[in-house]
């Protein structure tokens, strides 16, 4: 009869974390910038239908890097959670904090109990009245939940892109300028040019309308980069 080898828990967790981190580091980067105009999310995505950035609720957006099916599962669960909460209580009761907590619990549970941890890194952004009150939460593959900065990059080339953008993006920078800077930084880190229609965007616009999420049109993107 064969006996399973003893694996110390430290080793087990480390192996799992290494595995998940490798998956995430392969993901194409997403730039998230909270500015006066709103919260802008930019990523390279050659598929027009498999989205990495999505609307969760009136003022909340979601973005994920890593394995598509895994963060898509998380996005759908988040939309259900938000709609259910908003329907049962009131729209204003749906907050990024509650959602981020739920994601954190879920990812933590999957990390330690499932056969394979999720290879994802996600961000939940909530638009407030002013940029100082905006809330950005980042949740990692193991459920680690952190407050994210107004300028956050997920995925491959995280440090480099953040460094480049920190110099060129301030909270009063207009949205089109931020978009162009984010594209330039992503292209620079990838060391190649990206087609104009291969950008995926999400923009929580700081307006009084109920649903603030929209995507930039190709015309807007082209104009911003000229």
């Amino acid at each position, binding site marked *: 009869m064969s006996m399973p080898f003893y694996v110390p828990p430290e080793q087990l967790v480390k192996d799992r974390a290494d595995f998940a981190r490798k998956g995430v580091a392969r993901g194409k980067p997403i730039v998230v910038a909270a500015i006066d105009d709103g919260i802008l999310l930019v990523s390279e995505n050659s598929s027009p239908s498999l989205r990495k950035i*999505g609307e969760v609720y009136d003022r909340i957006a979601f973005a994920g890097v890593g394995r598509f099916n895994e963060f898509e*599962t998380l996005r759908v669960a988040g939309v*259900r959670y938000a709609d*259910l909460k908003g*329907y049962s209580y009131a729209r204003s009761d749906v907050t990024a904090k*509650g959602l981020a907590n*739920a994601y954190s*619990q*879920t990812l933590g549970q999957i990390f330690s109990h499932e056969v394979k941890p999720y290879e994802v890194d996600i961000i939940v952004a909530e638009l407030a009245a002013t940029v100082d009150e905006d809330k950005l939460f980042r949740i990692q593959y193991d459920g680690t939940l952190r407050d994210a900065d107004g300028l956050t990059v997920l995925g491959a080339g995280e440090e480099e892109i953040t460094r480049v953008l920190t110099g060129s993006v301030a909270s009063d920078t207009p949205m089109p300028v931020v978009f162009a800077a984010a594209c330039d930084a992503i292209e620079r880190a990838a060391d190649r040019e990206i087609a104009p229609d291969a950008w995926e965007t999400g923009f929580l616009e700081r307006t009084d309308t109920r649903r603030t999420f929209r995507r930039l049109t190709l015309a807007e993107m082209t104009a911003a980069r000229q």
Partner: protein
Amino acid sequence: MTSHTPVGPLRIGEHVADASFLSILQERGMAPAWDAGVGATPHLAEATTVLALTWADGVLMAGDRRATAGNVIAHRRVRKVYPADEHSAVAISGTAGMAVELIKLFQTELEHYEKIEGARLSLEGKANYLARMVRGNLALAFQGLIVIPLFCGYDEATGTGRLFSFDVVGGRYDELNYATTGSGGSEAKSFLKSAWRPDLSREEALKIAVEALVAAAEEDAATGGPDIKRGIYPNIVVVSAEGVAEIQDDALAGIAETVLEGRP
């Protein structure tokens, strides 16, 4: 097992048959349900006349503001017409409490579908879904708790405004030029029959809608006309290629005054 709490942990890979919000509610035993039992139903607030008509660039929906319970005016400022999403509007007549819940569910449903699927439902799809929701209340309809909606929207596929009417069994009917429902509906319809013509401008359509409601209010006790002294005006939503727009009271005040002055 079902749970009655909406804010439990996130459910990953939860089995829900489709992209429908109602399915989630049903899965968790949270779907709105009324069990009236047998016997007489109490006098509940009822919402009355609503109408919809097409105009040159889209459709328009209007409703009076009165809700009645038996012979009592229950509410004077009820809203019966609501935007359903960016390109459609829904109006209700019948048991007010149920109707308002139905609309809230319908609005959530359209938004939920759009977020999950990344695309809006077609206008036809929305109308069919609403018919399914009405059909779900059939047992209650036979006990007197009736909810009948009207639905209209701008069809992005064909570039036209379309209207749909419904009946208690969930029958869905395409209406050509105008449609009405509620206790004052037949009166409003006979007015629209003579006043409606193709290619109405937005202003003309607004005026005709208010006139039709005034005509209904004159004949039907359960329909409230514009009340200038109290500042109560009909509730109107216009849908066109630009999306839905609710007409504000100050714009309606002028129209209502003109209409009332012109009445014989």
